[in-house]
């Protein structure tokens, strides 16, 4: 349905996106994962025809939207990362404005506004000004504003950044509803692994402007099939212990956590006794050891050597 091919974008000599290719099939929910500055927003700006790539192409059902941007604009809804709403107007007035720019009017517009307000759970507060809303409520209206014209494809750029858990759950539920019940194709960008794991059937992982891995969440986890993740809970932090463990050959990565250490080790390596002995020699008590199923976060760590929130 929608295909980006070898996209490249350079800003003042700095390559923001380099050789990015991805595709979305109809009704799919695809995640675009990466830390801040990975090039996700630039990529979706090119896919949504807001930015022209330096090279590469974006095709919707075989038609290049670089040369015919209006082709995608008719069927696209974009939820930007910023709160792109008029703060001085109410939620209802904002939706009325965004509906009217899509030539909706009268009863059709009114019905759509009420349907979306119901969907995002703000129908009873529609007359209040946006500037009086919480961050989460603003984000929910920000999503509703992109759905007024019933788009076939929705691109969401980090829609849950900086909001309360209640609004976050509401947004995730809205995305699920859109994709599973209405059949809307969704491209969801985030740096929250768990969101992408919950919502998306396929994932692209970006870093430094490039796609570094892609596939279903299971396929990506299989990248770590040769590794185990051990979570050690310690009675006290100890930097020397972390450094010594780093020097042990089967241990591929050591990361300090809030209450201990996270180790990525080669699968089936018999390291437990060695780890316990090393801890004892540093007078650190291991309270418990947890063997962790690899997550996308671990995949990212494995691929880049850093966490998504670095």
């Amino acid at each position, binding site marked *: 349905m929608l295909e980006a091919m070898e996209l490249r974008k350079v*800003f003042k000599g700095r390559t923001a996106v380099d050789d990015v290719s991805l595709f979305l099939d109809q009704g799919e929910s695809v995640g675009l994962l990466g830390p801040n500055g990975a090039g996700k927003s630039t990529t979706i700006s090119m896919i*949504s*025809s*807001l930015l022209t790539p330096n090279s590469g192409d974006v095709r919707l059902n075989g038609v290049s939207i670089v040369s015919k941007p209006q082709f995608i*604009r*008719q069927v*696209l809804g*974009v939820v*930007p*990362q*910023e*709160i*792109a*709403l*008029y703060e*001085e*107007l109410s939620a209802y*007035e904002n939706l009325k*404005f*965004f509906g*009217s*720019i*899509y*030539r909706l009017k009268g009863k059709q517009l009114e019905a759509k506004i009420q349907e979306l307000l119901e969907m995002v759970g703000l129908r009873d507060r529609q007359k209040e*000004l946006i500037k009086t809303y919480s961050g989460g409520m603003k984000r929910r209206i920000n999503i509703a*504003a*992109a759905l007024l*014209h019933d788009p076939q494809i929705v691109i969401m750029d980090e829609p849950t950044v900086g909001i309360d858990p209640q609004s976050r759950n509401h947004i995730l539920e809205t995305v699920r509803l859109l994709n599973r019940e209405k059949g809307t194709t969704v491209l969801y960008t985030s740096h929250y692994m768990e969101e992408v794991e919950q919502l998306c059937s396929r994932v692209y992982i970006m870093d430094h402007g490039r796609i570094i891995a892609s596939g279903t969440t299971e396929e990506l986890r299989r990248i770590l099939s040769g590794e185990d993740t051990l979570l050690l809970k310690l009675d006290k932090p100890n930097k020397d212990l972390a450094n010594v463990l780093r020097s042990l050959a089967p241990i591929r990565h050591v990361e300090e956590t809030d209450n201990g250490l996270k180790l990525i080790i080669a699968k089936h390596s018999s390291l437990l006794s060695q780890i316990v002995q090393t801890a004892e020699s540093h007078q650190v008590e291991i309270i418990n050891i947890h063997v962790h199923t690899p997550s996308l976060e671990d995949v990212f760590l494995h691929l880049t050597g850093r966490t998504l929130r670095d």
Partner: protein
Amino acid sequence: MNPIFMAQWMKEKRSPIMILAFCGLSILATLLFGTGSDSKMQIGVFPAEGAGDTAAEEWLDLLNKGDAVEFVMQDELQAHSEVREGRADAALQLMENDYRIIAAIDNPNVQLVEQQVHTVFVEELQLRAAEAYKKDTSAFRTEVETYLKHPPITVQSQTTEGSQLIKYNMSLQLLFTFTLFLVMFTIGFKINSITMEKVSGIWSRVILSPVRKSEMYMGHLMYSAMIGFAQIAAVFLLFRYAFGFNLGDQFGMLLLIAAMYSMTIVALSMLLTGMVRTPEQFNAVFPSVIPIMPLLSGAYMPPGTITNEFLLTISELFPLKHALDAMIDIAIYNAGWPDVFLSVAKLCMIGVICMGIGINLMERRRV
């Protein structure tokens, strides 16, 4: 275009404080500075040592028969002090048959005083000289006064077109200046909302809709021009009907010039918006640049005060100068379209150039 226009109007209705504040400031500034501008200049007078108080009082009566300057008797030290400290343009020392002007600097006001005093003294001393040859001096004075009621020669001042010379109305100039000056802020800050929308992402959202970019610009530009025009029209109507200002017989023409001026300021604001990167930069640059325009155009001063060629050339670049010239010509001198054609043409040309460059700069910039 309509949804964009209406969204701006909805925002205005929610928060009309800016336009009301600038309307209020236009009115306040004109009332403060404009209504006092036609009052007479006061000059302190004191008798010279040895000159009698009676003689000084007589001269004072004669001097105060003129229109432009009011002479008041004052203590010598106080008169000197006021001139020294710049609170008075000049003071006048009266002698029996002569006078002396005390001034710190030579300015047009001092020359005006000098001219009036000189005329009064020359006339009076000529009469006194003639009286010396008459026995009945009071009869002579009466005879002269009667004779001057029907003088053998009368002088009439006319313009080159043959019409009556009209007294310049400084209050009206200040009304136009303050109104045109303050409306620049209203329009500028409205135009800045384009950059605000670009930063907030609203602009991108609208770009993705079926609304064309030209419609997006038109919505913003038309709204800003209309709100600016409404502000000018409201202030003019208020001064015409509530404060009784004489805005001439061609009020419709004045409003047309106001409409053209609003469009030109929209274009100028677009140019400045295109030169900056963020709304905050605009908010810093715009209020710093705009106040220079009326100053360099001489809009706060009587016509002809600025004579520096460089300043006069610079002022040609400012829309305020051309709109002001046209409005003054229409309101005070009852000028028609052919008379104000040059000002209007310059105004429109500035508008076209600024709009062309402004939109180009805005479209090149990536927010």
